[in-house]
């Protein structure tokens, strides 16, 4: 069966009609509005429930800190306020009451710190007042200052100089790396970051493909069960019908994703006027994800877009075939089962494969068509495969799409006219064979 230009005549009309009807559908509009609303409130809610990070406090309501020191090291409390500019106006005094009576001496904006020795280590317990309006972050800041003064007192007690003390308190960090990481320090991300990227991207692909498949299957079955197929088939070729629908659903779903992304950015930007939103950036940094590591550029975005498009085309064609093999709306679930199963398999394999941290596994999952949709772009962004391998992966995926389109073209007309129970895979192959014969002989 040869494809020609006429097979796609009318695609644009199907596309615009389907898209317009999606946009006009009240159910779709309500669903979209609810999703956008949820995304818009997500950042303020996150800030509200998570609270501002201690390191990013700009003001404090803390007024007085009572310190009960039960160690042998005297603290230089008069220097406490100088240790943290945020606490410059806070008064640090020794408590002249026992720990169990602290509550009676504290006002709403006061805190009580109890420093003592337990077994072989020292402990600082921090308590706000019963009517406290202070955040954990504010009390934590005060506790850090006392901790610093206590360390200084200990080293001073052992006769250390200021310089020696400075050397002792200087920070350090530790990294665990593989031999590959050591030899190519700038090439790959850490395991946690890679896992997170893979996880987030796989969820994005899964959502895109599953949402699109359900839309495509529903649209096709709706048309078939409305007995409109014959009326349509005298005006356009079956391939133009399915292509128009797939493109319309693609536009709708991509617009939905872009819209939700825009809502998140708006929410982030607007919330920034009222609250400290750096917590979100810090959350990513704490997971090892920084813009420098991800190297997000227009090129990366193009790579993600091309990969998503190929993934979308693959799953939408599979959905097109499974949707057309059904005749009534009752079959929607059974039709979407196959696509869901394939999408879920791809998702699971991609997540498991990351855990292997093996070059061969990464290469195979980046090249094998269905799984590659989930794995290849992440592997490239994380520096696990070269650009050549990525292009090879795209080519293999494009070939899969071409094969599915060819298979679709062979059976789609007969499938559209099929009525009754759902067509099984064996029957699909038989249809393709019959179509080949009629193409050679009958027509």
């Amino acid at each position, binding site marked *: 069966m040869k494809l020609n230009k006429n097979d796609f*005549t*009318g695609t644009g*009309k199907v596309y615009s009609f389907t898209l317009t009807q999606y946009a*006009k559908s009240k159910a779709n509009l309500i669903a979209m509005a609810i999703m956008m609303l949820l995304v818009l409130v997500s950042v303020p809610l996150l800030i509200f429930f998570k609270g501002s990070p201690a390191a990013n406090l700009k003001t404090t309501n803390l007024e007085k800190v009572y310190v009960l020191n039960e160690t042998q090291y005297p603290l230089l409390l008069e220097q406490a306020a100088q240790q943290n500019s945020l606490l410059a106006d806070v008064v640090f005094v020794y408590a002249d009451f026992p720990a169990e009576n602290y509550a009676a001496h504290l006002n709403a904006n006061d805190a009580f710190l109890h420093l003592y020795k337990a077994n072989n280590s020292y402990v600082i317990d921090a308590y706000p007042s019963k009517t406290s309006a202070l955040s954990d972050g504010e009390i934590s800041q005060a506790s850090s200052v006392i901790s610093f003064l206590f360390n200084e007192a200990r080293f001073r007690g052992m006769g250390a100089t200021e310089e020696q003390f400075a050397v002792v308190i200087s920070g350090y960090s530790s990294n665990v790396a593989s031999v590959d990481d050591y030899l190519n320090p700038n090439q790959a991300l850490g395991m946690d970051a890679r896992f997170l990227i893979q996880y987030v991207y796989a969820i994005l692909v899964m959502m895109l493909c599953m949402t699109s498949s359900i839309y495509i299957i529903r649209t096709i079955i709706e048309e078939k069960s409305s007995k409109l197929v014959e*009326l349509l088939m*005298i*005006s356009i070729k079956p391939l133009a019908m399915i292509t128009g629908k797939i493109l319309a659903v693609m536009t709708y779903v991509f617009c939905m994703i872009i819209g939700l992304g825009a809502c998140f950015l708006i929410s982030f930007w607007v919330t920034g006027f009222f609250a400290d939103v750096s917590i979100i950036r810090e959350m990513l940094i704490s997971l090892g994800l920084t813009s420098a590591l991800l190297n997000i550029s227009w090129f990366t975005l193009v790579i993600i877009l091309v990969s998503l498009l190929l993934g979308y085309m693959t799953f939408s064609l599979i959905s097109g075939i499974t949707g057309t093999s059904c005749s009534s709306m009752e079959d929607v679930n059974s039709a979407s089962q196959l696509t869901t199963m394939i999408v879920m398999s791809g998702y699971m394999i991609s997540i498991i494969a990351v855990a292997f941290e093996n070059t061969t596994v990464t290469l195979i999952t980046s090249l094998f068509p269905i799984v590659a949709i989930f794995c290849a772009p992440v592997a490239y962004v994380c520096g696990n495969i070269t650009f050549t391998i990525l292009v090879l992966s795209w080519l293999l995926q494009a070939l899969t799409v071409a094969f599915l389109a060819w298979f679709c073209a062979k059976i789609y007309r*007969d499938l559209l006219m099929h009525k009754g129970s759902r067509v099984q895979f064996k029957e699909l192959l038989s249809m393709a064979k019959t179509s080949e014969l009629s193409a050679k002989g*009958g027509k």
Partner: protein
Amino acid sequence: MSLIVSNLTKKYDEKIVVDNLSFEMKKPGVYALLGTNGAGKTTAIRMMLDMLSRDGGEVLWNNQPLDTATCNVGYLAEERGLYPKYSLMDQLIYFARLRDVPTAEAKKRISAWAERLEVTEYLYPTYSDGSLFTPAGKRAGFSFGSKRRKVIPPKKADQLSKGNQQKIQFMTALISDPELIILDEPLSGLDPINTDLFRTIIRDEIAKGKYLIMSSHQMATVEEFCTDLTILDRSKVVLQGNLNEIKKSYGRVNLTLKVEQDISKYINTAAVDLVAEKEFEYQLKVSGEEQANKLLAMLIANQISIITFDLREPSLHEIFVKVVGESNEAK
């Protein structure tokens, strides 16, 4: 223009469902495709329109394979449908645009057809008092202190009666002003008033010089319009040709006789078959004109007052039943 269907064949596994169907339409008019249930009429139509793959044969329109590109076809399918939840106007414009009718022209045609088929109120918004909504009317209807008229949106397909849905489907078939119109059971499910409305439209399309292929079980309707026909029985052609010639070949054998008294004894004497009798109106089956004349002479001789003496060829219904019956007996 001409339509040539030659050796159209369809098999499902080893079962033949359409067996070498061939016919031609060399001039405008109505060609009837008749047959029992499951004879293969709809399958033949679907093959002609390239909806089903063929196991043999070809369909030519002006000596070119019949295709959406070569012929403007209007089709009213046996299984009728509309998008249940979409606006009817959107659907009609969509179907028109698929047939390359520009949107502005489509709107004009929809308006004209809606008026003719009396479905305007289902396609356009109306006021609560039933009058059609217009933006100008909305402005004019508004004044302070007066009660504003409520605008009612047009209905969706699933809110229409079956007959009104059929009218919309008929519009979709004719919206592109097609050269070849294929109507599969066009009048089934319609009330007498709408049946007459559809018949008038079909007559007008014939007058415009369109080529029509009609498949129906309502023989009286087919007989009214068709010039040529094919009768299918269990995938095979059992009768084909020009309707008048087919009728002539059967001779004038149907006699309707209305008199003022009982003539049973004369009917028996003349050895004529009595089909039905009601208040001295007799439906008789004669072997030919000679037998009918013999009965007429007998009645006159016995001074029987004759109100009606009508000798006719068999109806299409009778021909159909006879041909299919003979075909079944042969099998």
